[in-house]
């Protein structure tokens, strides 16, 4: 058929045969990608499919091992972010690249005008201009550490525009936003497109692709699968491209059997070391044999809630956490004011899969058996550790959960995210818990591993364990959980029934309180 001549001239960036390796892992394999001017291109793929790596080569963070990049027909070598600016490419990274102790204006001029004194007046004027043009709000003199997530993201976009970017790459921009903030972002993106800018949005959320993009390019396991105009496709087709075969999006949800009160939290209040209230009078009950979901935009107290129950936070007066193993009212135990050590010694069967797998749940430099030993190493009177049991357990977990590892002795930090999570969840479940708490258990995992995790959670539920599931994907929460508790700014804004609640309802609850931080 041949390419339309119009499209040829319209190509802003061509990436040809790009390959990038990280040690043993091939992150991108012979990828060919075009970005056209004045379009919004969605770069779709599961976590770990190489989307961010590919874009990082445009923004100068990484350099390709082989392959070429052409910008407006000219062959370019992008050695560092400065080269990328010169080519008018700007990237908004998922983890914001902002210096917390500096102000917005200072962050914007960072790296520019190396010969001058800091001239913030001029910056303010230019920032105001950019804001007017696209409909942003930025306070130039606010310190970054005082900003909300969405303010930080706006600042990142303004920073990139200030540097004259024509091609903007946004890496998972909506992951940290509320539905309402997402809508606002999309308006801005459309404004920028109308202004002739090319925009690449990296995402794995199908409805966003459908809503905002003109064209979709799909990556799978580091390889380029193809691209289609958004108007000619639908979510099912895109899913097929993304995962390679049709998957049913249905998650199993067995009916809770004989639910009994297992964890009764009352007036739980937690402050961080700076005295900022992270949890404010939170009360709820978790039942045996049910999965209680917890929803909320990130940083609304989910993390603190689980950690408080696990004994990792100092609680304010009046907080009470009553725990009834298997719903047995006679064996009630107040967990408030107990440390993890107390909880362990009391034999409370509490399992906790924390958000930060290698920073809290596991020890990256230790091998699998040692990591399995973490929670039970001190059993027995001998002053020496017993590595026999953990070894057997490791072999079993590797077999049952299909963990891919070069061997038992490999440090877990060398394993992929999904395998790390399997080990962590496997260990927690092996302790035969009465209460299982998971924070973002499927973050960064491929679909298959995610389903393995859902299955494991459901198995626990059927055994009568009280399961608490903190998640970020509302679709999953609505399909997996029996009830969903919504947190907003550290307070409970509602508890809804997972079977009947609508997504918009939960989204509204997530933002129902105004931010009260100073």
């Amino acid at each position, binding site marked *: 058929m041949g390419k339309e001549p119009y499209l040829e001239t319209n190509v802003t960036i061509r990436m040809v045969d790009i390959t990038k390796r*990280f040690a043993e892992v091939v992150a991108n394999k012979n990828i060919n990608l075009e970005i056209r001017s004045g379009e919004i291109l969605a770069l779709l793929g599961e976590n770990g499919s190489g989307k961010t790596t590919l874009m990082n080569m445009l*923004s100068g*963070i*990484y350099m390709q091992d082989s392959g070429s990049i052409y910008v407006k027909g000219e062959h370019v070598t992008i050695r*560092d*972010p*400065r080269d*990328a*600016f010169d080519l008018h490419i700007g*990237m908004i*990274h998922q983890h914001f*690249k*902002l*210096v*917390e*102790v*500096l102000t917005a204006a*200072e*962050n914007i*001029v*960072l*790296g*520019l*005008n*190396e*010969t*001058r*004194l*800091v001239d913030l007046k001029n910056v303010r004027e230019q920032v105001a201009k950019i804001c007017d043009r696209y409909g942003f709000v930025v306070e130039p003199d606010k310190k970054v550490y005082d900003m909300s997530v969405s303010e930080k993201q706006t600042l990142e976009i303004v*920073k990139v525009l200030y*540097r004259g970017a024509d091609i903007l790459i946004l890496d998972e921009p909506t992951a940290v936003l509320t539905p309402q903030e997402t809508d606002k972002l999309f308006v801005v993106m459309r404004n920028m497109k109308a202004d002739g800018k090319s925009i690449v949005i990296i995402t794995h959320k199908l409805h966003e692709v459908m809503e905002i993009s003109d064209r979709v390019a799909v990556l799978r396991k580091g390889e380029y699968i193809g691209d289609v105009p958004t108007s000619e496709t639908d979510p099912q087709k895109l899913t097929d491209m993304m995962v390679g075969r049709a998957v049913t999006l249905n998650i199993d949800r067995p009916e809770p059997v004989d639910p009994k009160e297992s964890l009764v939290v009352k007036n739980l209040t937690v402050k961080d*070391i700076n005295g900022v209230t992270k949890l404010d009078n939170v009360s709820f009950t978790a039942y045996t044999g049910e999965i209680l979901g917890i929803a909320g935009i990130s940083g609304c107290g989910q993390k603190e809630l689980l950690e408080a129950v696990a004994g990792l936070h100092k609680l304010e007066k009046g907080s009470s956490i009553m725990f009834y193993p298997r719903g047995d009212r006679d064996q009630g135990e107040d967990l408030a004011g107990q440390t993890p050590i107390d909880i362990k010694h009391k034999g409370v069967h509490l399992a906790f899969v924390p958000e930060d797998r290698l920073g809290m749940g596991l020890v990256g430099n230790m091998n699998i058996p040692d990591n399995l030993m973490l929670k039970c190493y001190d059993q027995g009177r001998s002053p020496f550790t017993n590595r026999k049991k953990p070894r057997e357990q490791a072999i079993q977990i590797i077999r049952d959960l299909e963990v891919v590892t070069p061997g038992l002795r490999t440090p877990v930090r060398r394993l992929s995210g999904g395998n790390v999570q399997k080990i962590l969840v496997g260990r927690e479940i092996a302790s035969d818990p009465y209460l299982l708490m998971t924070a973002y258990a499927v973050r960064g995992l491929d679909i298959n591993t995610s389903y393995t995790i859902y299955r494991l959670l459901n198995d626990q539920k059927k055994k009568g364990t009280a399961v608490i599931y903190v998640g970020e994907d509302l679709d999953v929460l609505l399909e997996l959980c029996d009830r969903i508790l919504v947190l907003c700014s550290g307070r409970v804004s509602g508890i809804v029934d997972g079977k009947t609640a609508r997504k918009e309802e939960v989204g509204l609850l997530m933002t129902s309180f105004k931010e009260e931080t100073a």
Partner: protein
Amino acid sequence: MTQFISLFQASIVFGTVILFGAVGEILTEKSGNLNLGVPGIMYLGSIASLIGVFYYERYVENPIPIVCILIALVCAVIASMLGGLLFSFMTITLRCNQNVMGLAFNIFAGGFANFYGGSLNKLAGGVGQINVLATSAAFRTKIPNYRSLGPIGELFFSYGFLVYLAIFLAFAVSWFLNRTSVGLNLRSVGENPATADAAGINVTKYKYLSTCVGAAISGLGGLYYVMDYMKGTWDSDGSIEGLGWLAVALVIFASWKAPRAIWGSYLFGMLSWAYFYIPGLTRSSQEIFKMLPYIVTVLVLIFVAYQHKPDNQPPNALGLPYFREER
């Protein structure tokens, strides 16, 4: 009163050595590089300047003071910058652990300086000690007629120009860090190198430059030590090493703010010499008194940690190597 004046003067002389060291180290640490090799850098600065002027004084009949000063300054700055360069190469390019490299550097530089110091002593006439009289005198030239101002003159104007240079540098470094674009970039490198990198700042270049320039400033402390504090002689008793470590401690005492290091350094000086002015101490109990600056530093360390104020905290990425493609 005369007692107080002489304590005050001794404190300023003592303080100036560590003030140079600390100001240089603040500049270095602001880039996220923790150079525990400050004692070694000061060793290098001192021995290089001593070697330079030793040969000049030896081969010239009547040494010209200004030439002496220039030779000493150039030698000290070049040697300490080379030291900084070595440290930078090892920690920034080869990404060695900064603490370990700093200690290894001290072993090397201490050996280097004392080796050549010993050789110089021998060259200077065997038994006797090396003494670069002309240069030392030039460095200790005071403001003319300072005595006419009475005690004020004695207290504030009775020093060689390096004392004022140290104060000037402290303010200059502070101004540079807080008012200039380059200073802003440098701070961002120390706070969050990945961010700085993504903003187009050449992290490697900034770290190299700030470590080398910081080393040059610290090296001036060595120069001042040998020319003023030691009055142009060499002693391999390691006292400069102790001063170098105090300079590192002073950085924390001043919570990474150069102007605060000025009075901090003089306070350290006062505490160090206090034993000399307290009557009735035996020789052994004097030694106990000499602990004061160290004990005070320890107390400050505890206090700063206890207080935990955000603006007194070290640069966020201090001591960590940076590799762009880290995943």
